[in-house]
Protein backbone atom coordinates (compact mmCIF):
# COMPACT_ATOMS: atom_id res chain seq x y z
CA UNK A 1 0.00 0.00 0.00
CA UNK A 2 1.33 3.48 -0.83
CA UNK A 3 1.95 5.95 1.96
CA UNK A 4 -0.87 8.44 2.38
CA UNK A 5 0.35 10.51 5.30
CA UNK A 6 3.92 11.11 6.28
CA UNK A 7 4.79 13.08 9.40
CA UNK A 8 8.52 13.79 9.81
CA UNK A 9 10.22 15.32 12.82
CA UNK A 10 7.11 17.28 13.79
CA UNK A 11 7.57 19.83 16.56
CA UNK A 12 5.13 22.29 17.99
CA UNK A 13 5.82 24.85 20.64
CA UNK A 14 3.40 27.43 22.04
CA UNK A 15 4.93 30.75 23.03
CA UNK A 16 8.55 31.75 22.96
CA UNK A 17 11.54 31.79 25.33
CA UNK A 18 11.30 30.45 28.87
CA UNK A 19 7.49 30.43 28.97
CA UNK A 20 7.26 28.23 25.88
CA UNK A 21 5.22 25.08 26.15
CA UNK A 22 6.38 22.23 23.93
CA UNK A 23 3.28 20.28 22.93
CA UNK A 24 4.77 17.98 20.28
CA UNK A 25 8.40 16.89 20.08
CA UNK A 26 10.21 15.21 17.18
CA UNK A 27 7.25 13.14 16.16
CA UNK A 28 7.45 10.91 13.09
CA UNK A 29 5.11 8.30 11.66
CA UNK A 30 3.31 7.43 8.48
CA UNK A 31 -0.08 6.03 7.56
CA UNK A 32 -0.67 3.86 4.51
CA UNK A 33 -3.59 4.35 2.17
CA UNK A 34 -6.66 2.42 3.28
CA UNK A 35 -5.42 2.09 6.82
CA UNK A 36 -7.26 2.97 10.01
CA UNK A 37 -4.62 4.17 12.44
CA UNK A 38 -5.46 5.04 16.02
CA UNK A 39 -3.39 7.39 18.10
CA UNK A 40 -3.85 6.81 21.78
CA UNK A 41 -2.34 9.02 24.43
CA UNK A 42 -3.00 10.32 27.91
CA UNK A 43 -5.26 13.38 28.17
CA UNK A 44 -3.38 16.61 27.66
CA UNK A 45 -0.44 14.97 25.90
CA UNK A 46 -0.73 17.19 22.86
CA UNK A 47 -3.05 15.06 20.72
CA UNK A 48 -5.22 17.95 19.66
CA UNK A 49 -2.18 20.01 18.71
CA UNK A 50 -0.84 17.12 16.69
CA UNK A 51 -4.13 16.76 14.80
CA UNK A 52 -4.41 20.48 14.16
CA UNK A 53 -0.89 20.48 12.70
CA UNK A 54 -1.65 17.50 10.47
CA UNK A 55 -4.94 19.05 9.32
CA UNK A 56 -3.14 22.26 8.40
CA UNK A 57 -5.23 24.30 10.85
CA UNK A 58 -2.06 25.54 12.57
CA UNK A 59 1.43 25.62 11.08
CA UNK A 60 3.83 23.46 13.14
CA UNK A 61 6.92 25.20 14.48
CA UNK A 62 9.11 22.44 13.07
CA UNK A 63 9.11 19.36 10.86
CA UNK A 64 6.87 18.51 7.97
CA UNK A 65 3.56 16.88 7.15
CA UNK A 66 3.05 15.33 3.74
CA UNK A 67 -0.28 14.15 2.37
CA UNK A 68 0.11 11.84 -0.67
CA UNK A 69 3.56 13.36 -1.11
CA UNK A 70 2.48 17.03 -1.03
CA UNK A 71 3.69 19.25 1.76
CA UNK A 72 0.77 20.41 3.91
CA UNK A 73 0.57 24.18 4.36
CA UNK A 74 -2.96 25.29 5.11
CA UNK A 75 -5.89 22.89 5.04
CA UNK A 76 -5.56 20.48 2.08
CA UNK A 77 -8.58 20.18 -0.22
CA UNK A 78 -8.92 16.45 0.18
CA UNK A 79 -8.84 16.25 3.94
CA UNK A 80 -11.78 16.05 6.32
CA UNK A 81 -11.95 16.43 10.07
CA UNK A 82 -14.54 15.07 12.50
CA UNK A 83 -14.43 16.84 15.85
CA UNK A 84 -15.42 15.46 19.22
CA UNK A 85 -18.07 18.04 19.89
CA UNK A 86 -20.71 17.46 17.22
CA UNK A 87 -23.05 20.02 18.75
CA UNK A 88 -20.47 22.72 18.11
CA UNK A 89 -19.31 21.44 14.78
CA UNK A 90 -22.57 21.20 12.81
CA UNK A 91 -23.88 24.41 11.28
CA UNK A 92 -27.13 24.99 13.18
CA UNK A 93 -28.70 27.10 10.44
CA UNK A 94 -28.29 24.40 7.79
CA UNK A 95 -30.43 21.30 7.43
CA UNK A 96 -28.72 17.94 7.81
CA UNK A 97 -28.46 17.55 4.03
CA UNK A 98 -27.00 21.04 3.60
CA UNK A 99 -24.52 20.38 6.38
CA UNK A 100 -23.33 17.29 4.57
CA UNK A 101 -23.10 19.25 1.33
CA UNK A 102 -21.07 21.99 2.97
CA UNK A 103 -17.56 20.77 2.00
CA UNK A 104 -18.78 20.38 -1.60
CA UNK A 105 -19.86 24.02 -1.80
CA UNK A 106 -16.56 25.22 -3.16
CA UNK A 107 -16.16 22.42 -5.66
CA UNK A 108 -17.16 22.40 -9.29
CA UNK A 109 -20.15 20.14 -8.94
CA UNK A 110 -23.69 20.59 -10.18
CA UNK A 111 -26.42 21.07 -7.61
CA UNK A 112 -27.73 17.61 -8.37
CA UNK A 113 -24.33 15.93 -8.00
CA UNK A 114 -23.91 17.66 -4.67
CA UNK A 115 -27.29 16.47 -3.44
CA UNK A 116 -26.57 12.93 -4.64
CA UNK A 117 -23.19 12.80 -2.91
CA UNK A 118 -24.78 14.06 0.31
CA UNK A 119 -27.55 11.48 0.08
CA UNK A 120 -25.01 8.69 -0.52
CA UNK A 121 -23.03 9.77 2.52
CA UNK A 122 -26.17 9.92 4.65
CA UNK A 123 -27.20 6.48 3.43
CA UNK A 124 -23.76 5.14 4.35
CA UNK A 125 -24.17 6.21 7.97
CA UNK A 126 -27.77 4.98 8.15
CA UNK A 127 -29.46 8.39 8.13
CA UNK A 128 -31.40 8.22 4.89
CA UNK A 129 -34.58 9.98 5.94
CA UNK A 130 -33.41 12.94 8.01
CA UNK A 131 -31.90 15.23 5.37
CA UNK A 132 -34.52 17.93 5.84
CA UNK A 133 -34.23 18.11 9.62
CA UNK A 134 -32.11 20.56 11.53
CA UNK A 135 -29.25 19.25 13.70
CA UNK A 136 -30.95 20.10 17.01
CA UNK A 137 -33.83 17.82 16.11
CA UNK A 138 -31.51 14.78 16.19
CA UNK A 139 -30.01 12.83 19.10
CA UNK A 140 -26.32 13.21 19.91
CA UNK A 141 -25.37 9.95 18.25
CA UNK A 142 -27.25 10.90 15.10
CA UNK A 143 -25.60 14.31 15.06
CA UNK A 144 -22.18 12.69 15.16
CA UNK A 145 -23.28 10.44 12.29
CA UNK A 146 -24.09 13.59 10.34
CA UNK A 147 -20.55 14.86 11.03
CA UNK A 148 -19.16 11.58 9.75
CA UNK A 149 -21.39 11.72 6.67
CA UNK A 150 -20.17 15.25 5.99
CA UNK A 151 -16.58 14.07 6.18
CA UNK A 152 -17.33 11.15 3.85
CA UNK A 153 -19.20 13.31 1.32
CA UNK A 154 -16.01 15.13 0.40
CA UNK A 155 -14.34 11.76 -0.35
CA UNK A 156 -11.20 12.77 1.52
CA UNK A 157 -7.77 11.25 0.97
CA UNK A 158 -7.39 11.39 4.73
CA UNK A 159 -10.08 11.52 7.37
CA UNK A 160 -8.95 12.87 10.72
CA UNK A 161 -11.09 12.18 13.78
CA UNK A 162 -10.48 13.90 17.10
CA UNK A 163 -12.02 11.76 19.88
CA UNK A 164 -15.13 11.36 17.74
CA UNK A 165 -17.03 9.12 20.15
CA UNK A 166 -16.04 10.68 23.47
CA UNK A 167 -19.28 12.66 23.82
CA UNK A 168 -21.86 9.94 23.20
CA UNK A 169 -23.19 7.28 25.58
CA UNK A 170 -21.59 3.83 25.70
CA UNK A 171 -24.27 2.08 23.65
CA UNK A 172 -24.16 4.66 20.87
CA UNK A 173 -20.41 4.58 21.02
CA UNK A 174 -20.34 0.84 20.18
CA UNK A 175 -22.77 1.42 17.31
CA UNK A 176 -20.69 4.26 15.91
CA UNK A 177 -17.45 2.29 16.25
CA UNK A 178 -18.88 -0.56 14.20
CA UNK A 179 -20.34 1.90 11.72
CA UNK A 180 -16.95 3.54 11.27
CA UNK A 181 -15.19 0.20 10.67
CA UNK A 182 -17.82 -0.83 8.14
CA UNK A 183 -17.77 2.46 6.24
CA UNK A 184 -13.98 2.55 6.27
CA UNK A 185 -13.79 -0.88 4.67
CA UNK A 186 -16.55 -0.16 2.15
CA UNK A 187 -14.98 3.08 1.02
CA UNK A 188 -11.33 2.13 1.51
CA UNK A 189 -10.81 5.38 3.42
CA UNK A 190 -7.62 6.28 5.20
CA UNK A 191 -8.41 7.33 8.74
CA UNK A 192 -6.34 8.77 11.52
CA UNK A 193 -8.30 8.64 14.75
CA UNK A 194 -7.22 10.07 18.06
CA UNK A 195 -8.62 8.71 21.31
CA UNK A 196 -7.70 8.47 24.96
CA UNK A 197 -9.62 5.20 25.25
CA UNK A 198 -7.26 2.22 25.10
CA UNK A 199 -9.98 -0.32 24.30
CA UNK A 200 -11.35 1.83 21.52
CA UNK A 201 -7.93 2.26 19.92
CA UNK A 202 -7.37 -1.50 19.83
CA UNK A 203 -10.91 -2.33 18.74
CA UNK A 204 -10.98 0.18 15.90
CA UNK A 205 -7.43 0.28 14.66
CA UNK A 206 -5.43 -1.63 12.12
CA UNK A 207 -2.58 -0.01 13.95
CA UNK A 208 -2.18 1.72 17.30
CA UNK A 209 0.32 4.51 17.82
CA UNK A 210 0.99 5.12 21.49
CA UNK A 211 1.91 8.64 22.55
CA UNK A 212 3.88 9.68 25.58
CA UNK A 213 2.79 12.28 28.09
CA UNK A 214 3.35 15.90 27.07
CA UNK A 215 5.32 16.74 24.98
CA UNK A 216 3.92 14.12 22.65
CA UNK A 217 6.33 11.64 21.09
CA UNK A 218 5.61 8.19 19.72
CA UNK A 219 6.38 5.49 22.27
CA UNK A 220 5.24 2.50 20.26
CA UNK A 221 3.72 1.56 16.94
CA UNK A 222 1.71 -1.66 17.27
CA UNK A 223 0.06 -3.61 14.48
CA UNK A 224 -3.38 -4.86 15.51
CA UNK A 225 -3.59 -8.38 14.06
CA UNK A 226 -7.21 -8.94 14.97
CA UNK A 227 -9.51 -10.20 12.20
CA UNK A 228 -10.90 -7.41 9.99
CA UNK A 229 -14.45 -8.40 10.94
CA UNK A 230 -14.83 -7.30 14.56
CA UNK A 231 -17.55 -7.83 17.10
CA UNK A 232 -18.14 -5.74 20.18
CA UNK A 233 -18.47 -8.77 22.45
CA UNK A 234 -16.41 -11.56 20.86
CA UNK A 235 -13.49 -9.36 19.84
CA UNK A 236 -13.24 -7.69 23.21
CA UNK A 237 -13.21 -11.14 24.86
CA UNK A 238 -10.53 -12.59 22.61
CA UNK A 239 -7.11 -13.34 24.08
CA UNK A 240 -5.40 -11.25 21.42
CA UNK A 241 -7.50 -8.18 22.24
CA UNK A 242 -6.87 -8.55 25.94
CA UNK A 243 -3.11 -8.93 25.41
CA UNK A 244 -2.98 -5.94 23.09
CA UNK A 245 -4.94 -3.66 25.35
CA UNK A 246 -2.72 -4.70 28.24
CA UNK A 247 0.31 -3.86 26.21
CA UNK A 248 -1.03 -0.45 25.24
CA UNK A 249 -2.01 0.29 28.82
CA UNK A 250 1.46 -0.64 30.07
CA UNK A 251 3.10 1.54 27.44
CA UNK A 252 0.91 4.46 28.43
CA UNK A 253 1.67 4.03 32.10
CA UNK A 254 5.43 3.63 31.85
CA UNK A 255 5.89 6.68 29.65
CA UNK A 256 8.79 9.06 30.26
CA UNK A 257 6.93 10.99 32.98
CA UNK A 258 6.79 9.54 36.50
CA UNK A 259 3.74 7.32 37.02
CA UNK A 260 1.08 8.88 39.23
CA UNK A 261 0.49 7.26 42.60
CA UNK A 262 -3.28 7.17 42.61
CA UNK A 263 -5.76 7.27 39.82
CA UNK A 264 -7.47 10.31 41.26
CA UNK A 265 -4.26 12.30 41.34
CA UNK A 266 -3.44 11.39 37.78
CA UNK A 267 -6.91 12.48 36.69
CA UNK A 268 -6.39 15.87 38.24
CA UNK A 269 -3.01 16.26 36.61
CA UNK A 270 -4.28 15.30 33.20
CA UNK A 271 -7.31 17.55 33.54
CA UNK A 272 -5.04 20.49 34.27
CA UNK A 273 -2.76 19.60 31.39
CA UNK A 274 -5.81 19.30 29.13
CA UNK A 275 -7.00 22.75 30.07
CA UNK A 276 -3.54 24.16 29.47
CA UNK A 277 -3.41 22.60 26.05
CA UNK A 278 -6.77 24.01 25.04
CA UNK A 279 -5.95 27.46 26.32
CA UNK A 280 -2.70 27.34 24.37
CA UNK A 281 -4.47 26.16 21.24
CA UNK A 282 -6.98 28.96 21.37
CA UNK A 283 -4.34 31.56 22.05
CA UNK A 284 -2.41 30.29 19.09
CA UNK A 285 -5.49 30.48 16.89
CA UNK A 286 -6.01 34.10 17.92
CA UNK A 287 -2.37 34.83 17.23
CA UNK A 288 -2.30 33.29 13.78
CA UNK A 289 -5.60 35.01 12.97
CA UNK A 290 -4.13 38.37 13.95
CA UNK A 291 -0.97 37.72 11.99
CA UNK A 292 -2.77 36.94 8.75
CA UNK A 293 -5.01 39.95 9.15
CA UNK A 294 -2.03 42.23 9.58
CA UNK A 295 -0.34 40.67 6.59
CA UNK A 296 -3.34 41.52 4.46
CA UNK A 297 -3.33 45.18 5.35
Amino acid at each position, binding site marked *: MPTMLEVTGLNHRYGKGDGAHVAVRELSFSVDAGELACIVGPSGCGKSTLL*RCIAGLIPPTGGSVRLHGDEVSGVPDDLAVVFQDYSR*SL*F*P*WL*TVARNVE*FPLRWRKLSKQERAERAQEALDAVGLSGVGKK*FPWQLSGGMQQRVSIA*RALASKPALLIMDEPFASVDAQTRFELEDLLRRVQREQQSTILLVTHDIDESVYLGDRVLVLSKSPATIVADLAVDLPAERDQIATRESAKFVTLRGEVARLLQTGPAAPATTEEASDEVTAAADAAEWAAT*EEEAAETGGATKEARH
Partner: protein
Amino acid sequence: MRSLYRNLAGLIGFFLIWEGAVRVGLVPELFVPPPSEVLSTTAQLLGQEPFIRDVIATVLAWAIALGISIAIAVPAGLLLGSIAWLRTATRAIVEFLRPIPSVALIPLVLLVVGGGPEAKITLAVYAAVWPILFNTIYALAEIDPVLMDTARACGTSRARMLTSVALPHAAPFVFTGIRMSAAIALILVVSTEYVAGASSGLGNFILEASSGGTNMDQVLAGTVVAGVIGYLINDGLERVGRRMFRWNEAVGEAAK
Protein backbone atom coordinates in the same frame (compact mmCIF):
# COMPACT_ATOMS: atom_id res chain seq x y z
CA MET B 1 -54.59 31.51 17.53
CA ARG B 2 -55.25 30.83 21.20
CA SER B 3 -52.55 33.33 22.19
CA LEU B 4 -54.31 35.94 20.07
CA TYR B 5 -57.52 35.48 22.08
CA ARG B 6 -55.56 35.72 25.31
CA ASN B 7 -53.92 38.93 24.12
CA LEU B 8 -57.35 40.33 23.24
CA ALA B 9 -58.76 39.31 26.62
CA GLY B 10 -56.07 41.37 28.35
CA LEU B 11 -56.79 44.33 26.11
CA ILE B 12 -60.56 44.17 26.63
CA GLY B 13 -60.02 43.89 30.38
CA PHE B 14 -57.89 47.00 30.29
CA PHE B 15 -60.56 48.94 28.39
CA LEU B 16 -63.27 47.76 30.81
CA ILE B 17 -61.31 48.98 33.84
CA TRP B 18 -60.65 52.31 32.11
CA GLU B 19 -64.33 52.70 31.16
CA GLY B 20 -65.39 51.79 34.69
CA ALA B 21 -62.92 54.18 36.32
CA VAL B 22 -64.23 57.08 34.23
CA ARG B 23 -67.91 56.22 34.71
CA VAL B 24 -67.55 55.85 38.49
CA GLY B 25 -65.74 59.20 38.54
CA LEU B 26 -62.32 58.05 39.70
CA VAL B 27 -60.76 60.17 36.95
CA PRO B 28 -62.31 63.36 35.53
CA GLU B 29 -64.01 62.68 32.22
CA LEU B 30 -62.85 66.01 30.85
CA PHE B 31 -59.18 64.96 30.94
CA VAL B 32 -59.56 61.22 30.42
CA PRO B 33 -62.51 60.43 28.19
CA PRO B 34 -63.76 56.82 28.39
CA PRO B 35 -62.47 54.32 25.82
CA SER B 36 -65.85 54.11 24.12
CA GLU B 37 -65.51 57.77 23.21
CA VAL B 38 -61.80 57.51 22.32
CA LEU B 39 -62.40 54.51 20.07
CA SER B 40 -65.26 56.16 18.23
CA THR B 41 -63.11 59.27 17.72
CA THR B 42 -60.35 57.00 16.43
CA ALA B 43 -62.75 55.42 13.95
CA GLN B 44 -63.86 58.87 12.78
CA LEU B 45 -60.29 60.09 12.41
CA LEU B 46 -59.32 57.06 10.36
CA GLY B 47 -61.90 58.18 7.82
CA GLN B 48 -60.38 61.65 7.51
CA GLU B 49 -57.69 62.37 4.96
CA PRO B 50 -55.50 64.76 7.00
CA PHE B 51 -55.21 62.24 9.81
CA ILE B 52 -54.33 59.43 7.41
CA ARG B 53 -51.68 61.73 5.93
CA ASP B 54 -50.21 62.17 9.41
CA VAL B 55 -50.15 58.43 9.97
CA ILE B 56 -48.47 57.84 6.62
CA ALA B 57 -45.89 60.57 7.33
CA THR B 58 -44.99 58.91 10.63
CA VAL B 59 -44.81 55.37 9.26
CA LEU B 60 -42.79 56.49 6.26
CA ALA B 61 -40.29 58.37 8.42
CA TRP B 62 -40.05 55.30 10.67
CA ALA B 63 -39.40 52.96 7.74
CA ILE B 64 -36.74 55.21 6.24
CA ALA B 65 -35.06 55.66 9.61
CA LEU B 66 -34.99 51.91 10.30
CA GLY B 67 -33.67 51.20 6.80
CA ILE B 68 -30.85 53.72 7.21
CA SER B 69 -30.05 52.36 10.68
CA ILE B 70 -29.71 48.83 9.31
CA ALA B 71 -27.60 50.04 6.39
CA ILE B 72 -25.22 51.79 8.78
CA ALA B 73 -25.16 49.47 11.77
CA VAL B 74 -24.84 46.05 10.15
CA PRO B 75 -21.75 46.80 8.04
CA ALA B 76 -20.23 48.82 10.89
CA GLY B 77 -20.91 45.96 13.30
CA LEU B 78 -19.36 43.41 10.96
CA LEU B 79 -16.30 45.62 10.59
CA LEU B 80 -15.89 46.31 14.30
CA GLY B 81 -16.74 42.73 15.17
CA SER B 82 -14.09 41.21 12.96
CA ILE B 83 -11.23 43.70 13.36
CA ALA B 84 -10.09 43.79 16.97
CA TRP B 85 -7.88 46.88 16.79
CA LEU B 86 -10.65 48.91 15.15
CA ARG B 87 -13.04 47.86 17.92
CA THR B 88 -10.55 48.97 20.56
CA ALA B 89 -9.86 52.23 18.78
CA THR B 90 -13.55 53.15 18.57
CA ARG B 91 -14.64 51.93 21.99
CA ALA B 92 -14.27 55.28 23.76
CA ILE B 93 -16.14 57.31 21.16
CA VAL B 94 -18.92 54.71 20.89
CA GLU B 95 -19.39 54.61 24.65
CA PHE B 96 -19.45 58.42 24.69
CA LEU B 97 -22.05 58.78 21.94
CA ARG B 98 -24.32 55.92 22.91
CA PRO B 99 -25.73 57.22 26.22
CA ILE B 100 -26.58 60.67 24.81
CA PRO B 101 -30.40 60.89 24.71
CA SER B 102 -31.50 61.63 21.16
CA VAL B 103 -33.92 64.27 22.38
CA ALA B 104 -30.96 66.28 23.68
CA LEU B 105 -29.70 66.48 20.13
CA ILE B 106 -32.91 68.09 18.79
CA PRO B 107 -31.60 71.70 18.78
CA LEU B 108 -28.40 70.65 17.04
CA VAL B 109 -30.23 68.57 14.46
CA LEU B 110 -32.77 71.31 13.76
CA LEU B 111 -29.94 73.73 13.06
CA VAL B 112 -27.96 71.36 10.89
CA VAL B 113 -30.62 69.54 8.83
CA GLY B 114 -33.58 71.88 9.28
CA GLY B 115 -37.10 71.18 10.57
CA GLY B 116 -38.39 68.91 7.81
CA PRO B 117 -38.82 65.15 8.01
CA GLU B 118 -35.00 64.86 7.85
CA ALA B 119 -34.83 65.97 11.47
CA LYS B 120 -36.97 63.16 12.87
CA ILE B 121 -35.32 60.60 10.60
CA THR B 122 -31.85 61.73 11.70
CA LEU B 123 -32.73 61.49 15.38
CA ALA B 124 -34.45 58.13 14.98
CA VAL B 125 -31.41 56.78 13.14
CA TYR B 126 -29.13 58.06 15.89
CA ALA B 127 -31.07 56.16 18.53
CA ALA B 128 -31.81 53.04 16.48
CA VAL B 129 -28.26 52.36 15.32
CA TRP B 130 -26.98 51.13 18.71
CA PRO B 131 -28.95 47.95 19.35
CA ILE B 132 -28.22 46.68 15.84
CA LEU B 133 -24.56 47.66 16.07
CA PHE B 134 -23.99 46.03 19.44
CA ASN B 135 -25.89 42.87 18.59
CA THR B 136 -23.85 42.46 15.40
CA ILE B 137 -20.54 42.93 17.22
CA TYR B 138 -21.66 40.56 19.96
CA ALA B 139 -22.76 37.93 17.44
CA LEU B 140 -19.38 37.88 15.75
CA ALA B 141 -17.60 37.51 19.08
CA GLU B 142 -19.84 34.56 19.91
CA ILE B 143 -18.92 32.34 16.95
CA ASP B 144 -17.70 29.02 18.25
CA PRO B 145 -14.02 28.39 17.36
CA VAL B 146 -14.89 24.74 16.68
CA LEU B 147 -17.39 25.88 14.06
CA MET B 148 -14.74 28.07 12.45
CA ASP B 149 -12.28 25.17 12.44
CA THR B 150 -14.94 22.96 10.90
CA ALA B 151 -15.53 25.46 8.11
CA ARG B 152 -11.80 25.83 7.52
CA ALA B 153 -11.35 22.06 7.46
CA CYS B 154 -14.10 21.99 4.82
CA GLY B 155 -11.90 24.17 2.63
CA THR B 156 -13.66 27.49 3.29
CA SER B 157 -11.39 30.44 2.51
CA ARG B 158 -11.09 33.41 4.83
CA ALA B 159 -13.11 35.60 2.49
CA ARG B 160 -15.94 33.06 2.26
CA MET B 161 -15.93 32.62 6.02
CA LEU B 162 -17.84 35.94 6.31
CA THR B 163 -20.70 34.95 4.02
CA SER B 164 -20.94 31.26 4.80
CA VAL B 165 -20.34 31.23 8.56
CA ALA B 166 -20.24 34.68 10.16
CA LEU B 167 -23.36 36.13 8.50
CA PRO B 168 -25.71 33.19 8.97
CA HIS B 169 -24.50 32.80 12.54
CA ALA B 170 -25.01 36.50 13.26
CA ALA B 171 -28.38 36.84 11.49
CA PRO B 172 -30.70 36.02 14.43
CA PHE B 173 -28.73 38.31 16.78
CA VAL B 174 -28.85 41.12 14.21
CA PHE B 175 -32.56 40.54 13.75
CA THR B 176 -33.19 40.86 17.47
CA GLY B 177 -31.30 44.14 17.33
CA ILE B 178 -33.51 45.28 14.46
CA ARG B 179 -36.64 44.47 16.44
CA MET B 180 -35.41 46.52 19.38
CA SER B 181 -34.44 49.36 17.04
CA ALA B 182 -37.81 49.30 15.29
CA ALA B 183 -39.56 50.23 18.54
CA ILE B 184 -36.95 52.84 19.40
CA ALA B 185 -37.19 54.44 15.96
CA LEU B 186 -40.98 54.74 16.24
CA ILE B 187 -40.73 56.36 19.67
CA LEU B 188 -38.16 58.82 18.37
CA VAL B 189 -40.13 59.72 15.24
CA VAL B 190 -43.34 60.42 17.17
CA SER B 191 -41.64 62.31 19.99
CA THR B 192 -39.59 64.45 17.62
CA GLU B 193 -42.78 65.32 15.74
CA TYR B 194 -44.28 66.31 19.08
CA VAL B 195 -41.34 68.16 20.61
CA ALA B 196 -39.89 69.81 17.52
CA GLY B 197 -43.24 70.84 16.07
CA ALA B 198 -42.98 69.12 12.73
CA SER B 199 -45.50 70.09 10.07
CA SER B 200 -46.93 66.57 9.79
CA GLY B 201 -47.07 63.22 11.55
CA LEU B 202 -48.86 61.61 14.47
CA GLY B 203 -46.79 63.47 17.06
CA ASN B 204 -47.72 66.74 15.45
CA PHE B 205 -51.39 65.74 15.38
CA ILE B 206 -51.28 64.96 19.11
CA LEU B 207 -49.53 68.29 19.81
CA GLU B 208 -52.13 70.28 17.90
CA ALA B 209 -55.06 68.39 19.42
CA SER B 210 -53.72 68.95 22.92
CA SER B 211 -53.53 72.73 22.62
CA GLY B 212 -56.47 74.19 24.52
CA GLY B 213 -56.91 70.99 26.52
CA THR B 214 -60.47 70.26 25.39
CA ASN B 215 -59.83 67.65 22.71
CA MET B 216 -58.50 64.92 24.93
CA ASP B 217 -60.46 62.29 22.97
CA GLN B 218 -58.39 63.22 19.89
CA VAL B 219 -55.13 63.25 21.84
CA LEU B 220 -55.86 59.78 23.17
CA ALA B 221 -57.05 58.57 19.77
CA GLY B 222 -53.69 59.65 18.32
CA THR B 223 -51.94 57.81 21.14
CA VAL B 224 -53.98 54.66 20.54
CA VAL B 225 -53.09 54.74 16.84
CA ALA B 226 -49.38 55.17 17.68
CA GLY B 227 -49.65 52.18 20.01
CA VAL B 228 -51.38 50.07 17.38
CA ILE B 229 -48.68 50.91 14.83
CA GLY B 230 -46.00 49.85 17.32
CA TYR B 231 -47.86 46.64 18.07
CA LEU B 232 -48.25 45.77 14.40
CA ILE B 233 -44.59 46.47 13.68
CA ASN B 234 -43.40 44.24 16.49
CA ASP B 235 -45.85 41.48 15.69
CA GLY B 236 -44.93 41.56 12.00
CA LEU B 237 -41.21 41.41 12.75
CA GLU B 238 -41.76 38.54 15.17
CA ARG B 239 -43.54 36.57 12.48
CA VAL B 240 -40.80 37.29 9.95
CA GLY B 241 -38.18 36.22 12.52
CA ARG B 242 -39.94 32.96 13.27
CA ARG B 243 -40.12 32.16 9.58
CA MET B 244 -36.49 33.09 8.90
CA PHE B 245 -34.91 31.41 11.91
CA ARG B 246 -36.80 28.18 12.11
CA TRP B 247 -33.39 26.47 12.35
CA ASN B 248 -32.81 28.08 15.69
CA GLU B 249 -33.52 25.60 18.47
CA ALA B 250 -35.35 28.10 20.66
CA VAL B 251 -37.42 29.41 17.74
CA GLY B 252 -38.12 25.90 16.50
CA GLU B 253 -39.37 24.76 19.89
CA ALA B 254 -41.55 27.84 20.27
CA ALA B 255 -43.13 27.35 16.85
CA LYS B 256 -44.28 23.81 17.72
